[in-house]
């Protein structure tokens, strides 16, 4: 069978399919829907993963968060009796349970080459203040205590516009760095004039006076718009205060429930997470109720991607059923076609067509039918996928491999479901076929 004969068969198949346009289209429908669904899902999945990865990397892919977690009831470490009950009752860590400065110091020493820095923050709750020029409205802001080192690293995304970031010398003082938005809403002056201004914040119901040390640039969170349009008043910005000040304000113990480890560039975060987790957990082997564990955005991204993959797989399974049904449709219509063309088959055999030629002719027809369906499905799937991912807001890139696999798969369906009818045609007795009415 030369190339020209295969071409001849394809032309023959196209002629035959063209003479039954409507029937061919309806037969293809199952294949079209199946392939379109797979390609669309693939594209949308890629778009979602990309969008998630993109937004998470903005949060710092190189960051590892170490936090306290309660030991699970089947954890046998710890010493005292009645551990299980204490675990059940005790849901706030005591002073001796927190991650201490000593632990952090030792950690920084041990992994000096792996980490860039350790960021310490302490949430001091929400502060409220009357809106400037409108005492009936209150503005709220998140009060975060943090180290000067952490603040320095904010400079890149949210540069200081007036004044300065906090320094080590500010520790324990009632100084704050606010956003330009906060200046507009609560102070009502220019950024430069706001520096040095006294603001009275209500923290946990108690008024508390702070002096503004600096004003940083407000950057709108692009994902905030996903949750609906916000009016200006409801925008909540962060007020940075010294770490110690935040501790005093909240009346918390020394030590931290959470710390953020920023890894040095080039460190494999995914594997380093476990090392960090094990390191901190080793401090807690004798603790009854608490332990420390580490997690990272990368592992979060990974599990998100995994979840999306699972969803894609589920939908692909449904698409596979559509392809199966489509394939059975192809088999059905090919069987009808063989019956309709019994005389033609008889004639071809009388003219000297060997069984293999008849088989090839009908398999080719089935393949052509499926591949055309597959191509239409790919076109439909790509356009549907692009449209959906434009809604998600992340440029879609339908993968070439998925398209190749889809077309190849529809070809496979053609062979698989075309074989039975084609074989039936090939095995027809020429005399019976010629006599067929």
């Amino acid at each position: 069978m030369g190339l020209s004969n295969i071409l001849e068969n394809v032309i023959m198949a196209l002629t035959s399919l063209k003479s039954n346009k409507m029937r061919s289209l309806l037969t293809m429908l199952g294949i079209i829907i199946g392939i379109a669904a797979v390609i669309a899902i693939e594209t949308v999945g890629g778009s979602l993963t990309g969008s998630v990865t993109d937004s998470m990397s903005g949060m710092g892919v190189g960051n590892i968060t170490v936090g306290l977690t309660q030991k699970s009831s089947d954890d046998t470490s710890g010493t005292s009796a009645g551990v299980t009950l204490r675990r059940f009752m005790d849901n706030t860590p005591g002073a001796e349970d927190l991650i201490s400065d000593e632990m952090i110091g030792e950690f920084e020493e041990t992994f000096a080459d792996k980490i860039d820095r350790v960021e310490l923050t302490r949430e001091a709750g929400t502060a409220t203040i009357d809106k400037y020029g409108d005492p009936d409205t209150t503005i709220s802001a998140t009060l975060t205590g943090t180290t000067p080192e952490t603040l320095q690293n904010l400079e890149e995304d949210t540069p200081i516009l007036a004044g300065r970031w906090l320094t080590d010398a500010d520790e324990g003082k009632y100084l704050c760095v606010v956003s330009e938005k906060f200046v507009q809403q609560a102070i009502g002056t220019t950024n430069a004039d706001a520096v040095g201004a006294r603001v009275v914040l209500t923290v946990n119901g108690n008024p508390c006076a702070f002096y503004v040390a600096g004003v940083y640039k407000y950057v709108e969170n692009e994902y905030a718009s996903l949750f609906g349009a916000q009016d200006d008043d409801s925008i909540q910005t962060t007020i940075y205060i010294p770490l110690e000040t935040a501790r005093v304000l909240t009346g918390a113990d020394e030590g931290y429930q959470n710390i953020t480890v920023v890894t040095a560039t080039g460190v494999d975060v995914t594997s380093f997470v476990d090392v960090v987790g094990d390191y901190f957990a080793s401090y807690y082997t004798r603790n009854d109720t608490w332990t420390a564990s580490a997690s990272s955005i990368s592992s979060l991204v990974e599990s998100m991607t995994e979840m999306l993959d699972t969803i894609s797989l589920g939908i692909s399974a449904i698409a596979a059923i559509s392809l199966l049904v489509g394939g059975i449709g192809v088999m059905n219509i090919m069987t009808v076609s063989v019956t309709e063309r019994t005389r033609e088959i008889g004639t071809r055999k009388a003219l000297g067509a060997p069984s293999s030629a008849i088989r090839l002719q009908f398999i080719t027809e089935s393949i052509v039918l499926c591949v055309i369906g597959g191509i239409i499905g790919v076109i439909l799937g790509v356009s549907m996928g692009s449209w959906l991912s434009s809604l998600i807001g992340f440029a879609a890139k339908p993968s070439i491999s998925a398209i190749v696999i889809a077309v190849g798969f529809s070809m496979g369906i053609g062979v698989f479901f075309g074989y039975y009818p084609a074989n039936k045609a090939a095995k027809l007795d020429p005399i019976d076929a010629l006599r067929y009415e």
Partner: protein
Amino acid sequence: MADSKQFAEAVARRVNGPRRPRPLIEMQGIRKSYYIGQPNELEILHGIDLKVYPGEFVAIVGESGSGKSTLMNIIGVLDKPTQGTYILDGVNIHEARDNQLAAIRNQKIGFVFQTYNLIGRQSALKNVELPMLYAGVPGGERARRAKEWLTRVGMGERMRHQPNELSGGQKQRVAIARAMVNEPALILADEPTGALDSETSRVVMDLFHEMHERYHKTIVLITHNPALAQECQRVLTLKDGRIVDERKGGGARGAL
């Protein structure tokens, strides 16, 4: 050696008359039964002996039910006899397998059917190309030869037409071109004028005569029309599965 061989041949010529070429069709004791081993076992052909020599124009006539379709199927190697030997152009049909039978049909036999049996939705040209497609003739050569034969049967003007755009006579002419295009040893025509009016039948019969006289084709014509058979060189009458009569045909045209 050479002398003795020549001598032997000379003797044989004396004894047997002028030396005849090897028969194209050589059938001996052909029997065909259906439903073998079942209570309704039925023998259609009861021992047919038949020789057709190259270049002959033979008619096989018989009423319906005489077994002529069965005989035609066997001559056309669409079917194998239950008993007897059939040698077509030196090939013993019994020993051939299905694919070899297909090749024999392709290379040695050109079929012309009562119902034309052109492939629908394909042009006359493509229809004539078909036997060459199965013979593995390359595309350009196929088209050239198909055009040549369509022109010879007078269908050169209509070779792009599809069968449903052609009249019965035109269809049969295309079918004859298709039968001739692989230069087969034998043209096997089964009631080729059965579906045509007498005027068109005349045209088709003249075409068969032309194929016979001009291209020296061996033709076996199966018909139930005695007048048509009379035009052939030799007429065999089939009745109840036996050849009951064999005579020379008049060869005169215009029977219709």
